[in-house]
Every structure is written in C-alpha cells, then in structure tokens.
C-alpha cells in the first residue's frame, strides 16, 4: 500500500461508515424526543432531555409483551433446531446417509419463498385451532432454522478429523456415545454460532409472525409494525421499542463476527 493513499482511504472509510450509521443515530435521537420535537420543522436534531420515559411508555404499549413472546419463540425454535439439526448433520457428514440428494433437499427447503409455505400452513393451523399460539409460530420458524442448523453443523462436523470418533468407538463408546462425548464438544464454538444465528433469524422474522399471530401471541416485530399502522404515530415510543429489540441482535453481531459470512451464505462461502 503506497503511503500517500493511506490517509484519503481512511477518510473515505470513515465518511462512508458515518453515512451508513446516521439512520441509527437519528432513530436513537428520536427515541428521546417529545411530540413537539419530532412533529416540527425544521427538525430538531438533539432532544431537550435524555429521559427514559418513552422507553417505559413503549414497553407498556405492548413492547414488553412482544419481547417476552419473541424470547419464548426464538429460544424454543433454536433449541429444537440445534438438538435435531446437529444429530442429522452428524449422520449426513459421517455416514453420508441419503448422499448429496438428501442434504441438498434439506437446503432447498431453506430457499423457498416464505409466503408459499405459510399459506397452506395457515389453513392447517386454522383447522387445528392453532392460530395465535406459540406452537404454530415455533413450528413454522423451524422451516428456516432446521435446514440452516443442519447445513452449518454438517460443515463443522466435516472439518473434524474422523479418527477421534473411530478410536472412541473402538474403546466401547457406541455411535451415539462417540457423537455426544467426542464430536459434539469439539464443534462447540460452531454449535454456539449456529444457535445464535437461529435465534437471530427467529427474533427478526416478520411474515410468519404477522400471519400466524394475532392478539394472544404478538412477537416484537409485529408489535412495532402495529404501532406504526396505528391512528396516532408515537414516533418516540416506536423508536424506543425498536432500539430495545435491536440490542440482543447487536450483541450477537459482535459475538458472531468470525462466522458471519459462513452463516449468511448458508455455508457456501467460508469466511
């Protein structure tokens, strides 16, 4: 890298980063503004006071319930995806069961347009009287998380040397023992990364939650959309809830750094 280009490049990077992050800053400022400060021209950039009152108000307007529902749904669907997905991934990676076709069939489920799956599922749940229940949304979120977990974990298992498990089997561990006691602990970092991705996908999801939730189950994404569609738009409260809902995701983004590319390309590009 030639030295005289170094400074302009860093100025450029910094400028672009500031530009990319400015919408977040505006949202953050809005969450502290009073009505007179966001419905005014010229716009107010910095609010008069930084009190948490709109946060409390936003959480009361369904935000806290939404977060509770999102936690229940995301944690359950993540646990199921990891438990069932890593078992299947192990079988695919180690015994090549079903060959490539089974593996790619599982992946293809992940690529389907969500609207195509949710339409018949809505009718199924309707006849089961499952609309507006946790289990309907949890099960439907498996559509994206189960294939995802299988693919990610398959990649991680394939990177392990097979000799360790073979030795364990010779020593009298069964297949399941070799999986639980040898392979699984060795892929622990990958397992955690996969779980965090599953949590994030479920937490951020909107279409399934909107169609399958209603009044008893309202995940936070649906809650925010509902506040925006209301008669009187309470911008500060909406901004506040959207910021609270983004905090877990920002933490996950920082923890996941190393695995981001791999997860977001379904393992097609290993970062």
């Amino acid at each position, binding site marked *: 890298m030639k030295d005289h280009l170094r400074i302009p490049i860093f100025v450029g990077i910094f400028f672009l980063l500031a530009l990319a992050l400015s919408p977040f800053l505006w949202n953050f400022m809005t969450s502290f503004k009073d009505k007179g400060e966001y419905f005014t021209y010229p716009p107010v950039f910095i609010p008069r006071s930084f009190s948490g009152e709109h946060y409390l108000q936003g959480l009361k307007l369904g935000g806290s319930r939404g977060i509770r529902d999102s936690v229940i749904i995301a944690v359950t669907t993540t646990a199921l995806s990891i438990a069932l997905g890593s078992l299947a991934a192990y079988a695919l990676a180690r015994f090549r069961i079903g060959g490539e076709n089974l593996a790619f069939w599982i992946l293809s489920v992940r690529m389907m347009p969500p609207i195509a799956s949710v339409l*018949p599922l809505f*009718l199924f749940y309707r006849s089961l009287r499952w609309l507006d229940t946790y289990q309907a949304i949890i099960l439907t979120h498996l559509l994206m998380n189960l294939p995802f977990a299988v693919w990610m974990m398959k990649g991680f298992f394939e990177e392990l040397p097979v000799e360790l498990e073979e030795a364990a089997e010779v020593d009298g561990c069964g297949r399941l023992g070799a999986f639980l006691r040898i392979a699984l602990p060795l892929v622990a970092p990958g397992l955690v990364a996969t779980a965090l991705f599953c949590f994030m996908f479920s937490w951020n999801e909107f279409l399934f939650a909107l169609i399958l939730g209603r009044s008893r189950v309202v995940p936070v994404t649906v809650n925010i959309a509902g506040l925006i569609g209301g008669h009187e738009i309470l911008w500060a409260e909406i901004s506040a809830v959207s910021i609270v809902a983004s905090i877990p995701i920002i933490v996950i983004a920082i923890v996941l750094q190393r695995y981001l590319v791999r997860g977001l390309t379904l393992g097609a590009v290993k970062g």
Partner: protein
Amino acid sequence: MKKRNVVALFFVLPVIIILLAISIFPLIYSFYLSLCQWDIGTGAARTFVGARNYLRLFTDSRLWNAMRNTGLELLFGVGTQFLLGLSLALLLNRVFRGRSLVVTLFLLPMMISPVVVGCIWKIIYHYQYGPLNFLLEKIRLSPVNWLGSSSTSIYSIILADIWEWTPFVMITLLAGLQAIPDELYEAAKVDGATRVSTFLWIVLPLLRPVIIIAVLIRVMDAFKIFDLVVLLTMGGPGQSSETIAFYNYLTGFKYFSMGYASSMTYFQLAIIVIIANIFLKSWKGREMA
C-alpha cells in the same frame, strides 16, 4: 455396516419428518388448492376449476405490476448493492487497527430486523418533518414525496433495501478477497502489472465464484421483499409499490382467495427453483475446484 446405517437413519429421521410435515405436505395441499376456487371470506364451498387460476395469472395486470417492481429492485437495488458492496470490500481489504470493529459496524443494517429498518426509514422519509427532505432543502433542492407519490414509492423502498443489504455483498466479497494469497499480488507487481490490470485479470476472475453466490442470494431475496413494503407504504399509493410477495399476501390474507393465492405461490416457486438450481450448481462447481 447395515447396523451403522440404521443408527444413522434414526439420526436424520426427526428432521425429515418435520420438514415433510411443514414443507412438503403443505405444498402438495396448496398445489391442489391452486386448482380450486376457494374464497374463505365468503364461506362459499371449494370448487375445482382446473388450470383457471394459472391462466388468470397471465392476464392479471396487478401481478405484472408487482413483477415490474421486483424487476426494478433487481436492476437498481441488487445492482447498486453489488457495485457499492464491491467498492467497500476493496476499501476494507487492508490491514489496519480496529478493522474488525469497523466491519462489524458496517454490518449492523443487515443484522437488525427488517421491521426496524422500515421503522427507521419511515421517519427519515417523512415528507414534512423528516431529516432527508430537510437536507434536500438545505442544498436548495425541492423536497421529494418519498413514500406518498406513486412515481417514487418503489424507489424509496429500493433505497432502504440498498442500505440494508449492501453490507451483505460487502462482507461476502471481502471474505473472497481475503482468500486470495498475497503472493499473487506480489507476482503481478514483479511482472509490472498496474493496479487496474491486477484487479481486472487476477482479482476479478478469482472472485467470480463468490460474486455469483452473493448475487444469487440477493436475487432470491429480491423476490421475497415484504417487510419493507408493509412498514413503509402498504403497497401504495394505489398499487405503485406492491411486490410479488406483498400482492400474494393480500390475495391470500386480505381477499381470502386461497385458490388464486396458491397458484401465485407456485408461480414464485417456479422462479425460485430455477435460481436456486443455478446457485447449487455454482456451489458444487466451487467445491470441486
């Protein structure tokens, strides 16, 4: 050998059963529905109509309007994401302190929920009180009715989508760039290659498989744009910013025409299957390389 396979089968069976139950059986059912007329809002009985729903697809101008909007997103949205993402990746492909923090900050728009993205841009685009029009007036341009005019609404959705997804292209291409060994750059330098020719004849060809994967994923996602439409415009004004996924949602869950909505999902499935096959082929090709 036999026993091993039986154990392995038990390992994959739960996943297969669940995916059959929530994916394959529902799709078989909705294929049957796509051959029926069934308006669950009116309580009328389901009647078999054969291919009539599929024929209707071709003459439904509202569907083709939605397809046109998807085309605009592919052209301007995915196109811009690619060019911007590639430039950012090239800028960030160097060693400096705090690099991983900078990269993570760039990624935030795509990590947070699309609902939050919609909520942020709804404030920014506000005609009277939004910061964007304020800035335009500061530089003596006239304000734009971003979300309220049928000539701009879809472009406003595309702009928000560019903000959200450029980081995806950036990080994927950045991973591709970092896989290129330093020796290649050095060898090119020794041979007297300029920066431009190194980029065109060494970097781009090596990056090609990663570019294909990143763009194909974005193309598939472009057909699924839904959240931003609901949050920003609800498809309006009129039908000017309806996307295919959103129109499909309206048909099924607002007008309750389950039969016609099902045929529309199959129309999208056909498109996605074609793109997904190209994606998988290029992936398998990469693994062999």
